[in-house]
């Protein structure tokens, strides 16, 4: 514990060194927020496995490293292999390298139909926009005990600020790309994104996380999404980092009346991934669908914590997380569903399905239901299985070899998630990444 405290003190010192250069310095509310956050971070310390929420996720590989923070854009060339992933989704995009906006890689929306897509650091320089941001940044995203969120709030140097006016339909997906450059030293990036979707507006949003292999890096992202009445948001998180990277991402979505939020959370590559997805159904008739797919091999770990807070009546939530685990890979799924006293006629269904491909892989899956209303439908289920031997035999009797049969069954298992992807480029990329993972996990085996 004392060793961990020493680490936090390193960051307290680092904070005092850079605080004057952080964006929004001089805004009273933000100075106050950052100061409170670094104090909170030091006080909380890195979570240990003694905490229920971190029981299976040991973050000491993050805690025992010293990460550096950068405040100016990296000069590192983005590798060509990454270029294709940056270009993956046609449409407006912001690209952040080590947490700082890279203008040369970004593309502004080509027609300004009212979509605002800018750097949060820039927006904080404009008094009017800063005032608007205060409403969204002026509090933790509902997770006061989350040390990584506090760390992000203290240190964030940039991120995306997106505002979609009421009634606006954004035709092409908005792409946010976060790249860890792997330049020189281990770098921690803390992107902070604020996405405000007006009443009746519709948009798809893709967050892609990439890292250059070879250097340890941490991405600790916080994304807040506010969806107005009747708004529809289709959100994708593509974690495609290298096994040298650590990935912590917290997404908080708040939904007004009849708003519709879907999310797809994909975890493909980082050594350690912790995702917290909190959805608050804060209006009657709001609905969300949360899908997730994670793949682990080697000794990687992916931890998905979700929380769906049903606060108002007649809201619907659907959740399906699937994990494919090989080698010594580990997975965690913790799905909380809270149904408040007033949230009558809530309809919530949660499933966690896991496919174990080796004897050493491990999954801990847990539903966590707190139901305080009496007229609700809440169902949940969890399954953990292996490749079905009957199915394997059936495929082989058709001439299909063992390897191809395994791949076919794995694709079949993932199809339930992939088929729900509404952005074709993302659907194709996810299928490709699944196949690439299959190849690499075979090599590792």
């Amino acid at each position, binding site marked *: 514990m004392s060793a961990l405290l020493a680490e936090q003190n390193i960051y307290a010192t680092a904070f005092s060194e850079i605080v004057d250069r952080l964006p929004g310095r001089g805004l009273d509310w933000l100075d106050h927020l950052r100061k409170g956050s670094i104090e909170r971070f030091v006080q909380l310390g890195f979570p240990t496995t003694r905490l229920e929420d971190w029981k299976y996720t040991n973050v000491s590989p993050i805690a025992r490293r010293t990460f550096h923070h950068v405040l100016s854009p990296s000069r590192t060339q983005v590798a060509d292999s990454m270029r294709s992933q940056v270009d993956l989704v046609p449409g407006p995009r912001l690209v952040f390298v080590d947490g700082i906006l890279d203008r040369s890689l970004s593309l502004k929306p080509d027609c300004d139909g009212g979509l605002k897509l800018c750097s949060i650091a820039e927006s904080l320089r404009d008094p009017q926009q800063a005032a608007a941001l205060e409403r969204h940044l002026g509090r933790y995203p509902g997770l006061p005990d989350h040390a990584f969120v506090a760390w992000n709030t203290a240190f964030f140097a940039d991120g995306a600020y997106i505002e979609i006016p009421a009634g606006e339909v954004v035709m092409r997906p908005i792409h946010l790309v976060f790249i860890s450059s792997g330049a020189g030293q281990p770098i921690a990036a803390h992107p902070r994104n604020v996405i405000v979707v007006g009443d009746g507006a519709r948009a798809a949003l893709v967050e892609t996380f990439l890292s250059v292999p070879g250097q340890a890096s941490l991405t600790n992202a916080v994304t807040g999404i506010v969806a107005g009445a009747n708004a529809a948001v289709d959100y994708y998180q593509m974690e495609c980092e290298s096994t040298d990277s650590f990935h912590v991402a917290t997404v908080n979505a708040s939904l007004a009346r009849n708003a519709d939020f879907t999310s797809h959370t994909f975890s493909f590559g980082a050594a350690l991934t912790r995702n917290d997805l909190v959805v608050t159904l804060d209006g009657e008739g709001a609905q969300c669908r949360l899908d997730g797919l994670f793949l682990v091999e080697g000794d990687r770990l992916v931890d998905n914590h979700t929380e769906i807070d049903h606060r108002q009546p007649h809201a619907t939530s659907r959740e399906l997380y699937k994990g494919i685990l090989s080698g010594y890979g580990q997975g965690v799924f913790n799905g909380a569903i809270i149904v408040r006293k007033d949230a009558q006629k809530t309809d919530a269904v949660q499933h966690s399905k896991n496919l174990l491909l080796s004897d050493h892989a491990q999954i801990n899956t847990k539903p966590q239901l707190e139901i305080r209303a009496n007229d609700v439908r809440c169902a949940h289920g969890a399954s953990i299985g292996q490749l*079905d*031997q*009957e*199915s394997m*035999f*059936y*495929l*082989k*009797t*058709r*001439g*299909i*070899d*063992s390897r*191809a049969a395994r791949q*076919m*069954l794995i*694709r*079949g*298992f*993932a*199809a*339930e998630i992939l*088929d729900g992807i509404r952005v074709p480029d993302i659907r194709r990329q996810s299928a490709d990444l699944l196949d690439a993972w299959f190849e690499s996990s075979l090599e590792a085996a």
Partner: protein
Amino acid sequence: MLRIRNLHASIDGREILRGLSLGVQAGEVHAIMGPNGSGKSTFAQVLAGRDIYKVAADELSFDGHDLIGMAPELRARSGLFLAFQYPVEIPGVSNLYFLRSAVNSVRKHRGLPEFDAVDFISVAKHCAAQFGLDDAMLKRAVNEGFSGGEKKRNEILQMMLLEPRLAILDETDSGLDIDALKVVARGINAMRRPGRAIVLVTHYQRLLDYVEPDQVHVLVGGSIVRSGTKELALELEQRGYSWLEQPVAVET
């Protein structure tokens, strides 16, 4: 084509096949009949290479290949086909993709060019149409949500596409109404060729009204206790199996 002498198969120390012997020539249709629990399905699964059974035989060969220890996919590529009694449902895998993978792996083995997705669709549709099958079945996940009859027809469709040398049909008639039975029988008859053998494994005689066998064998207690012509099947239909279920001297 298929030569079996003194085949034994056991699972969990329980012996199911006890000294089964059978010879099938190219162009022939054989029916294997027998009461429940006589080992019919085990026999079919053992031929296809199911590795949960412990198998021993003086001879077990197909087209000159020794089947003992041969992987199921290699048997399939060599031209052996098993239509399952209970076809397996494979969610998330489209029937068309599955069929193409199967056909291409067999074609590759035979030195034939593989089908691309576009060409294969027309081949599969053509086969399905010949056989009165709805195209929609091709697009659905393999056997998922198929009715019993659809599953059996999907097995016959696979047989037509894979063009095996030896087809073993395990209770393909079970669970079919009379119309579906006729459709399936038509599919089987369309497959009859001088160079191809078919083994029908069945409990009832009724399929044999539509697919006329050259030989009928009665399997009881894990070995063949009687062989004859199609008249034997009619006799079984009238008299049942009990008259054959006397303890038989089994060679050990």
